[in-house]
């Protein structure tokens, strides 16, 4: 009977891992993976908010930004999440249509109106902006001396130059690029995508994979943000990185957070939403998430030298909600040839 005894020992081992019991209320926040990484804003924001709220903040890093919405839809009414953090304006309407998000109290809307430092007028009854930036292609100055100045220049790059982008089905930057190109090329967008194909090294699921490939030298340019060079400048004291300034204009991204309708801790969630507009959150953003803060905060040195596009593109989120499927299919078809 030794084997059976052994078997029970195995089973006992299997159950031995028991979750630690927490007495404090837990605020669960779904976000994308780079937000919660050690070098991301997650740890500092968690510490700052826990000081104020006497609660336990748990960031759950999902594999990509659109994955947050997918996960919430999959979990349905049973979701454990209080807050979804990391969607952007493009997805706002789509997210609202799912019916899983709660309206913000009016006091928060007034905070947004009064204090926001967004480049556009932002009004929404569900979503709270927390940072913003422009998409752009980042390159290394020593490798590309003559960066492309428009999307058509991108096509003229030498054949061995490769760019890496994100999948519009899974990551907000990927969706941003899709809309950016759509906004410039309109009906011609699918032709442009077809022409761009030979330049694309790969399409990754999330931003961090793409940026990793770029840093590793596998790709020469990466779809990221105009603020990305600030990271290399400030954190690494390396001014070799820059963003290609496109004369066609850059697409704007405003990242947002929202409370879930079935949030287990709705009051805490509202507290956190208010906290987003305070320095405890906003001051962390520029040097960890490497984006512009959404509320008045002083920018660190190095941000001033960044390229600021003169022309911005942004689609209405209702328009995106209507067209997203069609445009993604168009993209799929022009990339599968």
């Amino acid at each position: 009977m030794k084997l059976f005894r052994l078997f029970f020992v195995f089973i006992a081992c299997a159950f031995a891992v028991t979750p630690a019991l927490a007495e404090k209320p837990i605020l669960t926040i779904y976000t994308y993976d780079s937000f919660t990484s050690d070098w991301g804003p997650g740890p500092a924001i968690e510490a700052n908010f826990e000081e104020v709220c006497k609660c336990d903040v748990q960031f759950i890093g999902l594999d990509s930004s659109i994955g947050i919405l997918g996960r919430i839809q999959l979990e349905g009414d049973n979701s454990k999440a209080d807050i979804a953090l990391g969607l952007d304006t493009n997805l706002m309407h789509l997210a609202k249509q799912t019916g899983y998000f709660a309206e913000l109290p009016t006091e928060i809307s007034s905070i947004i109106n009064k204090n926001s430092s967004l480049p556009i007028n932002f009004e929404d009854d569900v979503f709270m902006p927390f940072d913003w930036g422009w998409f752009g292609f980042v390159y290394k100055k020593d490798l590309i001396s003559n960066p492309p100045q428009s999307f058509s220049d991108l096509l003229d790059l030498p054949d061995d130059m490769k760019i890496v982008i994100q999948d519009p089905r899974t990551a907000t930057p990927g969706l941003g690029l899709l809309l950016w190109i759509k906004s410039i090329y309109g009906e011609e967008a699918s032709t442009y995508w077809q022409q761009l194909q030979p330049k694309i090294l790969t399409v990754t699921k999330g931003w961090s994979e793409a940026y990793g490939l770029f840093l590793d030298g596998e790709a020469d340019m990466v779809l990221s943000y105009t603020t990305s060079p600030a990271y290399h400048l400030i954190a690494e004291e390396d001014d070799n990185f820059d963003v290609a300034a496109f004369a066609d204009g850059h697409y704007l991204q405003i990242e947002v957070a929202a409370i879930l309708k079935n949030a287990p801790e709705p009051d805490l969630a509202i507290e956190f939403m208010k906290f987003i507009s305070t320095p405890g959150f906003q001051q962390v953003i520029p040097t960890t998430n490497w984006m512009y803060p959404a509320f008045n905060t002083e920018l660190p040195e190095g941000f001033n030298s960044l390229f600021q596009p003169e022309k911005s593109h942004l689609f209405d989120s209702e328009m995106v909600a209507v067209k997203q499927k069609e445009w993604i299919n168009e993209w799929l078809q022009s990339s599968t040839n």
Partner: protein
Amino acid sequence: MFSFRKSTQTQILFEHFRISRNLGIISGFLLAAIGCSILLRMFFMAGGNYYWVEDGIDVIFAKSTVLIIKSAAWQASLSTLISLLIGLSCARALYRRNNHWMSKIVLSTSFLALVVPSSVAALGIVGVWGRNGLLGTIGGEMTSPFGLWMVVLAHAFFNAPLVLRVAFSSLQAQPAYFWKIAAQRHLTTMQIFKLIEWSAFQPLILPLSSLIFLLCFTSFSIVLMLGGGPNVTTLEVSIYHAVRFAFDLPLAAMLSILQIIICSGLILLSKPFTLHITSPTANKGTIVCRSDHGNIIAKTTDYIWLAIFFILIFLPLIALFYRLDLTSGLSLFNQKRFWDAFFTSTNLSLLSALISVCIAVILIHSRFRLVQSGNLILTRFIDFSVSYYLLMPAIVFATGCFILLRDFISLFDVAFWLVLMANILFSLPFITRILAPSLERVLAQHDKLSLQLGITGIRRFSTLTLPALHRELQLVLGISFAFSLGDLSVITLFGSQNFETLPFYLYQLFSRYGASEADMLGMFLLVYIFMAYLFFGFVFWCFRKFHTLDRVSLLNAYTR
């Protein structure tokens, strides 16, 4: 001592093994019920949201679906062709070289390639062919570490060894006098190929190619890791996208059904599972005398093929060691995420290995008894309930679970159990196939003895069956442990930073690219699988030592 007449023998058998029969029937029924309810729910899901026939057909013939199928079919055909070409040529070369040690080494490596987790293999393949890979640094740089060719290479890594093993044992099965006659008649290489080798390969080609085509057509983790965007895709990856990101469950259901239809059609047409995958033994080095053995052209082509095999199969494994950067790689072991994933994976794999082997033993017992009592319908039913999971892809299963259960429970709370269930169900077809022949043989051998001595039930199993089967059990436990430890399918739907298995964590690290932790983790997984296999061997060794004593005293007691 007594012996019973034929008719009473059947009756006694029928009386005796009621429990073992029924247990198997019940578990077979459970398996079938789980599988069928998932499939039915999918049908209704698809039917409920679309106006079933018209819109369903619309989805199937939509341009995007056609593109997916085209891409998957092209990739699978290429992979099949290359695997077959390399596998058959290498089997031929290896057999012609007739070198004991060489065949021993190649055959054992080819076995290794069959158990390497796909995520680890992907790592090794990028290690060879990537920009900074082994061949990349020497100068054989590929343009991209992602895309069609990487996927095809990875599929060849898994399937060429399979072809090699099957083809090699088929060559060995050719009667020795064939070779003698060929030598006497001074047949040329071409003639030998046409007359002997081709006739050995020919019956293999259809089942092998359809099996490989099927595996590559439904490939998930390799395509996810190495595919690099929408250009290279399979139905499984699209289903994953539809569920995980677009939340288009009806679309996922339609695609799943489409995949099941295509796969079952292929299986029915070509019957790939009739193939007998025996383990070939190394050449003895003396038996075969071939007229073209010393031929210089034959020699060169043989060595070229073996070199290709080496590059394709050996090198990715070597690349893992070569690229290992200990200083930064070791930081893996300081990460809490790693240890969490380690414990989750260990629990998962141990439980799944034990449970699936138990179920397999129950099913085989029951099937054996059913055959004895001549109940064909139930025998077929048990066969069906297991083989069903060969047909249903894991990601479809997970999707079905989602659709079926999401209204009742929070799936992410029970993610562990779902992944466990999937691992058990999907390793069952393989381990029953491996275990069945020897277990049935042992059962038949022991039947009379155990009935005479009255050793039955669990006692019989632990004193007679288990010690006789320790080697096979070690193998299946090892295989199903490796299977669950390396599985990256269902977990992609349920995984997050809070619930990770080792391969899922590896996938995350791999996506970051260039993380030396990824190489470390890949190595760790390989070593871990190997250690687990040794551990199971050790457990059985102890067990056997204990029970041989027991068995001797038992036999003494009864025969006195």
